[in-house]
């Protein structure tokens, strides 16, 4: 019980230095701080400005910004990558929501969390992502993190997808596990999707349910398509959405 409580408190440590650059965060709060509890800030303004939030016209399926793409790369509000998934009958994911563009700053943040293992840094997201995740909470999606292989999980100590879900305040269910290691095989992505089984479905009845997959980055979409397929085909899920920190 105290273990769970600890988990909830993980992102609540009092910090007045920026978690990214370690500089003191200049307070913008007035005299009422004396009477009210001051909200904890984890990010300085300088660093906050370096994030690029996704906005404007986005691909209806993968959530990437369309305005940077040249005109022949999208059609009817969908990007060519997503249209290709559909053409090959491999589109199982209904929709991805990504919060940020994968710029150099985001690249650095994700690599600091994922490869260096700085879990605490995930805490910077909980103030930045509120609007977009409210929808999933109201609609009663079942949140499922994309799992790591046992080997990788031990090596890193934590799963960054799960950490992200936790930072968003989702209650997650571990309905998937990995069969293969994450190492990319030499086969093309459509080949891989046809032949390889990446995930195993743990015994859970998902028939007719709405699922929200959680991952760190949407790159090619292959991982999320694999997970969506098994959730729908074997688990009987009605809808599968996904939420990622970034769309590369």
């Amino acid at each position, binding site marked *: 019980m105290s273990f769970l409580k*600890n988990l909830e408190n993980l992102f609540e440590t009092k910090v007045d230095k920026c978690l990214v650059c370690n500089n003191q965060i200049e307070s913008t709060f007035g005299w009422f701080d004396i009477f009210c509890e001051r909200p904890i800030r984890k990010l300085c303004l300088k660093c906050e400005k370096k994030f690029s939030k996704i906005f404007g016209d986005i691909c209806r399926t993968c959530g990437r910004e369309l305005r940077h793409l040249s005109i022949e790369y999208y059609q009817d509000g969908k990007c060519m990558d997503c249209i290709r998934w559909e053409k090959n009958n491999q589109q199982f994911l209904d929709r991805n929501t990504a919060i940020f563009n994968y710029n150099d700053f985001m690249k650095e943040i994700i690599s600091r969390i994922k490869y*260096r*293992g700085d*879990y*605490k840094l995930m805490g910077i997201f909980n103030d930045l992502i509120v609007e977009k995740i409210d929808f999933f909470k109201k609609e009663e999606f079942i949140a499922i993190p994309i799992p790591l292989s046992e080997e990788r999980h031990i090596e*890193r*100590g934590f799963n960054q997808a799960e950490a992200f879900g936790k930072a968003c305040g989702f209650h997650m269910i571990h309905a998937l596990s990995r069969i293969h290691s994450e190492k990319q095989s030499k086969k093309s992505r459509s080949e891989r999707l046809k032949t390889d089984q990446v995930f195993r479905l743990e015994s859970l009845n998902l028939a007719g349910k709405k699922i929200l997959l959680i991952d760190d980055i949407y790159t090619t979409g292959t991982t999320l398509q694999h997970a969506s397929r098994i959730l729908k085909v074997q688990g009987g899920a009605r809808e599968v959405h996904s939420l990622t920190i970034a769309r590369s």
Partner: protein
Amino acid sequence: MKRKVNLQEFLTGRALLDTEIPVEKEVLEDSVQKGFVVKIEGLVDGRCMRCGNSDKHFLGEYPCFRCKTVCLYCRKCIEMGRISSCSKLYTWVGKPFTWPPSRCHWSGRLSEQQMDASKKIIEALKTGQDLLVWAVAGAGKTEMIFGGIEWALKHGKRIAVACPRTDVILELEPRLKAAFPETSIATLYGASEEKHVCAQLILSTTHQLFRFKNAFDLLVVDEVDAFPYSMDAELQLASKEAAKLDATTIYLTATPTREWQNDYFSGKRNGVHIPARFHRHPNPVPTMKWIGDWKKAISKKQVPASLHVWLSKQKNPFLLFFPHIELMNQALPLIQQITPNSLSVHAEDPDRKEKVQMLREGRIQGLLTTTILERGVTIKAVDVVVVGAEDKTFTEAALVQIAGRVGRSPDKPDGKVLFLHQGKTEEMIQAIKQIVTNNRIARERGLLDG
């Protein structure tokens, strides 16, 4: 890839994570069983056992998949591989590895005052004392430590030469490797390939000393006053822990803090002072001149009058120091109208080295710079101006270092140093006083010609 290493050689004086030790797990555990190696907890009572950090901001927690509890981890030294409550540091406690004796092959000649410093260093080693070596820029301090290093090598001792700045380490490496060709030497800094190599003589950024525990008999700390060593108590602690209890620490600096200067003069701190340059000419003394509201002038796209006058008369290559990068960038196009052959440089500039080289070769006349070039750069016949010398980035040490860029070549031992200011500061006055004092002492001791 796990390669074959001699654990005794690899782990003597070090505290490493299992992932950093290139032997099979069974071999490591076997050594623990036999009592040659001990395991230390990664964190104890909220304190990192590698870097000594206990600041809450630099500690984090995560639900650990490995040990199935909430694990505390250190964010301060995370770049060296995360260390958590459930991590163990391995250290050698068996008979320490000994390296074969080797000697110095440097054939140059020391000046009288270098010789004096060299003797004092060896004396400090023999008696196990610490020593401050206060040597002005251009005194030739690297050669002064060769004698001490040779003495230590001859007696099978282990040595670290550490500096806060990677630039200095990279510059020292070829000189030490040439002087000590038979000695096993490893160079450690953030991106270095030799990180996991073990050697008798370690050349390292102060940061990388975290990997060592109780290892060194002689620790030479170069530029002891340079950022971040001077600012970071944990780094100082790390260098203490890396050295053996009875080790000798040699602090090399051109600009000791005022406290250290006073302690030296009053005899409270064991030290040797080298007030003159190798070429026996006096250290150039800065002059001060009022510049007015220079920030306002630059924002109105004007070059302040006193700077304008100076630049339009300037024939020699020059460095213009600015306290802030934004103001420097605004000033560049204005200054290029007076001296078109000018560029600017700052810490994150990828062409930093190239631009300094261009100035050295006379392909450009002037370089605008932040304090990044305050140390280590030598350019023949250069003059320097500090624009806004009143700014708090320009400490006494910074100003003395900046003045130290001038007159380094024996063919051109003089040059101009100008502090353009909007109000004299104590730091400016103390900097000039320090240089004047050095010259006076040098003259009294007969270390200057003419």
